[in-house]
Structure formats: structure tokens, C-alpha cells
């Protein structure tokens, strides 16, 4: 007797194939799109948000990115340089240093700086760097600039008292060193020339051990830059060096044509021979 098969009526829309399952997230509130898809889109949105957040955050540090990037491309001859431009924009770059002279890798940029003050080298996060500005051909030392301005300001403000003090100190100095020179001029030190001509000598007699700065100082570029010599730009210094280097070469005998072109001609010859051999090399004649 044949077996009778009885099938129960089934709704095909809720049949779940083997190996799959449906759960509460398969609820489709809108246009048949399951809820889990919305949750997935939400998570992808969070992923995008994380990246946008960090991109925006890192963008704020873009101007100091040179701090890390210059370290990556640095060789033994390179040094990190913090530049303050004429419009006081701070950038961080990597320059070559040879014989205490900083010069850019790009040889079309003729600016050069002399690293005269090793104590002016800053250290940020374990990386040493030289601070330079476009309008001065030496490296900067903020501590010295502040110290000099403080000393000169005090000196200028107390002239009469200083004249007496200077005379007294000079008499004391004479007892130690009879050859010490008497400062001849006592008048305000208002610029670099005055400092050079008589200011330094006066200040050294007043404070033989050095100049003092306050324990806490906010560097004021308008106040602390008045003793910078004018006309000492980095471009001028670099230009002069290039000019001098050319002058040095004027005395040397130029290299002969063969000295300059020997390798080039040899390479050209070898290349031609290689071409000729390739052209004339017998192919298939042995078969």
C-alpha cells in the first residue's frame, strides 16, 4: 500500500533555510530592510567618525609636523632647524650643517646661518634643534637676548648711580688686575653699535661673572630684539659665502675636457659596443 504523505500548509516567507537563523535584529521596520542593516550602518558611521576625529585633531598639528618629519629624513650631516620668518611664522625644517654653517638642501636657496652659540640649541622631546630667523645670520639664544636687554635696560635707567658704581667697581678691579681698562664712556646702550663700542665693557665691569635674567620671563620680540645688528640677513651671509667660494676657485686651473668627460665618453663607448653586439649577434644560425 502506498505511503500517504500529508504536508502541513506552510508560509514560504518565514521559511529559514538550513544553517541560517533569524533573530530580533531581522525585524524590518521600513521597506523590508532589516534592523541589523541600520545597526551595521551605524557602526560604519562610528568608524568614519573615529577617523575624521583624528584627522581633524592631527590637522591642528600640521604646522609642527616638520618636527617629526625632519627627523625621518635626517642624515649625519643634518640638523633640525626652527625658523622664525620675517612675519614671525614658525616652521620646522631639516638643514645641512658643515663647519657650523647651516645651509638648505635646495641649493637654489642661498640663505645660510652660522651656529655660533651652542648654548642656544633647544631640545624638545629629546630632539635637539637650532633656532634661526630670516633676518639674522647667527643662531638665536633667547636666554642671552633676554639677559642682554634686562642688563641694558637697567644700565640705561640708572646712569648716575651706575657711574658711581662703575668707578667703585673699577677701583676694586684694579686691585685684582692692574691692567684692567677703565670704561671711558658711560651713556645709554641703545643699540648694537653702542653695545659693541662701550656697552659690553661697562656691563662686564658692573657684573664680571655674567648677566642675570629673571627666573620667569615671557620673551618679548619687540623688547628683546633691539640689540640685533642690522644688515646681517641669512641670504646676505649665504650669498657672500657662495661668492667667496667662487673667488677661491678662480685661482685654480679648470679641469681639462678629458678630466670632465672621460667617464661619460667611456660609458658612451661601452653603450655603443653593447648595441653593436646586440645588433650583430648571430641568432639561429646553429639550427
Amino acid at each position, binding site marked *: 500500500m502506498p505511503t500517504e504523505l500529508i504536508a502541513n500548509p506552510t508560509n514560504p516567507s518565514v521559511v529559514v533555510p538550513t544553517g541560517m537563523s533569524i533573530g530580533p535584529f*531581522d525585524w524590518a521596520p521600513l521597506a523590508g530592510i532589516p534592523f541589523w542593516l541600520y545597526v551595521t550602518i551605524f557602526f560604519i558611521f562610528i*568608524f568614519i567618525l573615529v577617523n575624521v576625529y583624528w584627522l581633524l585633531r592631527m590637522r591642528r*598639528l600640521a604646522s609642527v609636523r616638520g618636527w617629526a618629519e625632519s627627523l625621518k629624513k635626517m642624515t649625519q650631516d643634518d640638523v633640525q632647524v626652527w625658523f622664525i620668518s620675517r612675519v614671525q611664522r614658525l616652521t620646522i625644517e631639516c638643514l645641512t650643517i658643515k663647519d657650523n*654653517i647651516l645651509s638648505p638642501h635646495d641649493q637654489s636657496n642661498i640663505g645660510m646661518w652660522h651656529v655660533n*652659540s651652542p648654548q642656544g640649541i633647544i631640545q624638545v622631546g629629546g630632539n635637539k634643534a637650532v633656532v634661526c630667523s630670516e633676518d639674522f645670520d647667527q643662531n638665536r639664544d633667547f*636666554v642671552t637676548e633676554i639677559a642682554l636687554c634686562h642688563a641694558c635696560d637697567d644700565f640705561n635707567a640708572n646712569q648716575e648711580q651706575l657711574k658711581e658704581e662703575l668707578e667703585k667697581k673699577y677701583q676694586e678691579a684694579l686691585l685684582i688686575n692692574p691692567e684692567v681698562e677703565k670704561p671711558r664712556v658711560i651713556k645709554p646702550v641703545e643699540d648694537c653699535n653702542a653695545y659693541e663700542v662701550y656697552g659690553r665693557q661697562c656691563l662686564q665691569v658692573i657684573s664680571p*661673572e655674567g648677566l642675570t*635674567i629673571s627666573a*620667569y620671563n615671557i620673551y618679548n620680540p619687540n623688547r628683546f630684539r633691539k640689540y640685533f645688528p642690522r644688515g646681517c640677513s641669512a641670504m646676505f651671509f649665504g650669498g657672500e659665502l657662495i661668492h667667496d667660494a667662487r673667488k677661491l676657485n678662480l685661482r685654480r686651473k679648470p679641469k681639462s675636457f678629458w678630466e*670632465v668627460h672621460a667617464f661619460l665618453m667611456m660609458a658612451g663607448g661601452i653603450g655603443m659596443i653593447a648595441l653593436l653586439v646586440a645588433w650583430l649577434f648571430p641568432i639561429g644560425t646553429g639550427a
Partner: protein
Amino acid sequence: MATAPLFLGGLLNIVDPVIGFQLYIWGWLLILVVCGFTWIAWYYGSWKPFAPLHGLYHAYKAGSNVAFIFDQNLIGEMVSEADAKCIFDYSKWDYDLGVLSFIQKKIFYYPTVFLDDIDFLHAVVYKFGNINKNVEIARKFQNGEWERSPSAVCGGVPLDIVIDTDNWTLRKSPQHKAIERVATQWNEMNPDDQIHSYSKFQRKLIAGEIVCPEVKLDHLVSWTRVDAGFPMDLEESDWAGKRRQMAEQMYDSDHMSKNRMAIYVLVAGVGVAVLVIVIRLITHYY
């Protein structure tokens, strides 16, 4: 429950045989893990290496200046203006929040106690954006008296350079604690002439209005250093080596450029020769 055919033919409804999760749940977990790794990669790969310069970001957020604090040896760190100039960290002060509800306590933004111009919405944004308003608070306490003299501009933010030779700005240093103590005492006695910045503290200290034996007043800079910073008699020999090096490079530049060209010519000649042989072989056998 689903009332329509499964989305994508049920491709993401396949369950794993071990735990019994659908693939889309595994997908969520995967996205969250990737998010976590992305966060860690950004933090350690991009953000943390710039730790000494984070002050720039914080200053930008707070709308204040940024400051480089250097010690006498010019070892420095970039910090926000608040860290460089404000004696007090007002976020650490005790505020009586007893009368506030739980939610009000959670959204309490301490600068609203001192500054009147922060509305509710901004306070909430600043609170959760972690924006520091200490500079504005200190300025208000000092009746607008504030020293600012930016030396440079960094990323659009004015940059102050601060030389702190006696660790005044290090929050955990004994000097800072002494300054905080003395300034607090002064402020209690002189509510109309309060001290909230290191500059003002120093001015009062130099004028002898306050006494703080724990801190130094000044730092000596040797003449050697001054002379190096302001050289008066530089010899040409200071850069003669560089000049000779440049002269040598100029003398050799033509020669060196021809030698470099020779390598290119050699490589090109041999390369073309190989190409000729390859073409001849191909045309011969095919």
C-alpha cells in the same frame, strides 16, 4: 520576525556552528575591533609622537595662545597658555555642588562660576569638549591685566616663548607649590589686587611686596654665553671650512654631473642592447 524573504538571500543570516551568532553580528564585532585598532593606531602612530607639541592643539581648542616653556638650558615643551602663565588650576578648586541635581552635577562646567558670558549650550559643549578657560578666569581676577607678547605664529595660533629657569611652571615642583601658597595668602588679603599669573607674582616679588624664600629671583648667564649669542669679533676662519667645502663642490660639480650622466648613458646603452636582442629573438622564433 521576518515577514519577507531574507535580506541578501540570507547571506548574512548564516550562523556560526560554535556560538550560533549570525554573520552580521560577527560583522559588527569586526567593525568595533577595527575601530579600536584604528583609534590605537592614530593615538600611538600619529598623536603620541608629537607629545611635546600637544599644547598647540589644546591652545587652539581653548582659543588661547600657545607657549613654549624652556628652562635655562633651553630644554622645552609646548603647552597651552594656561599652563605657562596661570598659577592656579581652577578645575582643581572645590565647588559646592550640594544643591545641584545629579544631571546638573554631571554637566557642571566650573568656568561658569567665574565667567558670565558662557551660556548653557556653550557650557555643555565646552564641558564635553574639555575646553580650558583658565586664562580667561585668571585675566578676570587680575582685572584684565595680562602679559602677552607672541614671538611667532604657529599653525595660526600665537606662540609665546617662556623661559622658566626655576621650574615655577612645573605643577608638582616645590617652587610652584610655594608660589601657589603665597599667591593664595595675598589674594585673601588683597581681593582687589589679586595675583593669578607668574608675571604679576614676579613683579610683586621684585618690588618686595611679597616674600617667597623657596623661589629664586634670577639666574646668571655667563659672559661666554652672552658673547656667543651676540658675537662681536667673528673671525672669517669660523666659516672658512664651509667656504672651502663649497669651493670644492663647485670645482667638482661639472665633473660629478658628467659622471652621473655617464651612469645613465651606460645603463641606457646596455638596456637598449638587451631590448634589441629580445626583439630579434622574438621576431626570429615567432
